[in-house]
């Protein structure tokens, strides 16, 4: 039993270490310290790149997003408020917002736009309570995603990774707005339970 606690403790410590290393790096960025940027990059470039690649499906575009995100982090580090949450959540929110902006611009160019709602869409909510997941948590959430009823999963993926709006998802799946709304909330509640079970 004590062994389990020891393992849990060490994992929690590691997460705390990562978090404080990030805070430290960000303070370095705010002072204009380039080695701090390099250390932040080494810890999170893979996460930022993988998310951008998943959304944009293009290596060149994903690389551009990585550059934009770390440049923005460098510029805005002094304004970053640690109370707003983990640095990794900040970086990933920037990555998703920028990648989806680019995706929507691409769709507008190919005039594959369903209605004017695209321009009217709101930004994603900042991920105050998000944190870096352990490998075990990632596999749990992945498993939970694969067990979602397929239309819940599809609606969620279209919203999250394709950046489609409520109205666009409803049109794409030929379903009423209310149904799409319910599907997405149900899917997210299930993933929340899986995530909380994993802690």
């Amino acid at each position, binding site marked *: 039993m004590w062994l389990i606690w020891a393992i849990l403790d060490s994992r929690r410590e590691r997460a705390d270490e990562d978090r404080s290393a990030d805070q430290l790096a960000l303070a370095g960025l705010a002072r204009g310290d*380039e080695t701090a940027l*390099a250390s932040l*990059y080494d810890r999170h*470039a893979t*996460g930022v*790149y*993988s*998310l951008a*690649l*998943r959304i944009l*499906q293009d290596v060149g575009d*994903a*690389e551009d997003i*990585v*550059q934009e995100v*770390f*440049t923005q982090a*460098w*510029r805005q580090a002094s304004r970053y408020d640690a109370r707003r949450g983990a640095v990794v959540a900040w970086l*990933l*929110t920037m990555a998703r917002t920028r990648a989806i902006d680019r995706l929507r611009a691409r769709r507008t160019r190919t005039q594959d736009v*369903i209605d004017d709602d695209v321009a009217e*869409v*709101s930004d*994603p*909510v*900042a*991920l*105050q*309570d*998000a*944190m870096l*997941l352990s490998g075990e*948590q990632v596999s749990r*959430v992945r498993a939970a*995603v694969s067990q979602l009823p*397929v239309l819940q999963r*599809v609606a969620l993926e*279209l*919203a*999250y*990774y*394709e950046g*489609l709006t*409520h*109205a666009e998802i409803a*049109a*794409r*799946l*030929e379903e009423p*707005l*209310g149904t799409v*709304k*319910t599907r*997405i*909330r149900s899917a*997210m*509640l299930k*993933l*929340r339970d899986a995530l909380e079970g994993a802690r």
Partner: protein
Amino acid sequence: MAGPTDHNALHEMSGLYVLGSLSREDRAIFETHLAGCPACADEVRSLTRVSGSLAQLPPQIPPSPALRARVLAAVGRLEGSAEPAPRAAAAAGAFGSLSWLAAAASIVLAAGLGVYASQLRGRIGALEDQLREATLRADANERQMADLRRVSAEAQSQVAVLASPDLARVDLAGQPVAPSASARAFWSRSRGLVFTASDLPALPPGRIYQLWVVTAQAPISAGLVRPDQTGRVNAVFQTPPDIPQPVAMAVTIEPDGGVPAPTGDRYLIGTVASRPVS
């Protein structure tokens, strides 16, 4: 636009709100509600954790090493702060006048050199071992990465189909041999076919389900379908881009390996609506 007059309709917006998928109008409505509803505020907070975890689900693929240099250089240009470290230059100056110290040191060094050489041989051996190990690990990583790429390509092809503009949806109903079975197909001429089914009966040995895209001319095989233990199917198929406009889709049971034209019992049938989704 959803006509949210009661609390439930508003409450249900939480998921779309967190994902940033609400229209500006609905977002304003929901935020007004949020300010006075602690239950919704709690739910939104808990769902931001889900949104944050979705960001971390894609297979983790490291970017090319060249990108690191490019990003650091771009930031360096931004500030124009490529000044050399002044402390190193000062240190060299201080020791320059003490060149006799270097001479003395070299004598001490020579004495220690024999011991050092033998230590060095040991270190080189250890380093060679480490290098071998690292090479093995790099090979393993490469294999793992290839696996990850494959898995992610499979998952993404589904969404690629569903995100295509020429998407058509087909609901397939269970036939007398399997009345409770049901399925839904999403078909895009340009990107392929996503097929999901539930409650398909377990296959007897040596048999397999086969999915057919029925055109006015003839049924064309889309592929073979093997349900999991719970009778569910979730699969992606490619269809030829020059396929004639389908009128229906059907699933039959066939000998293992499949057949060029359907021969067995029909388990699922659905007709294709003439109008594409979008």
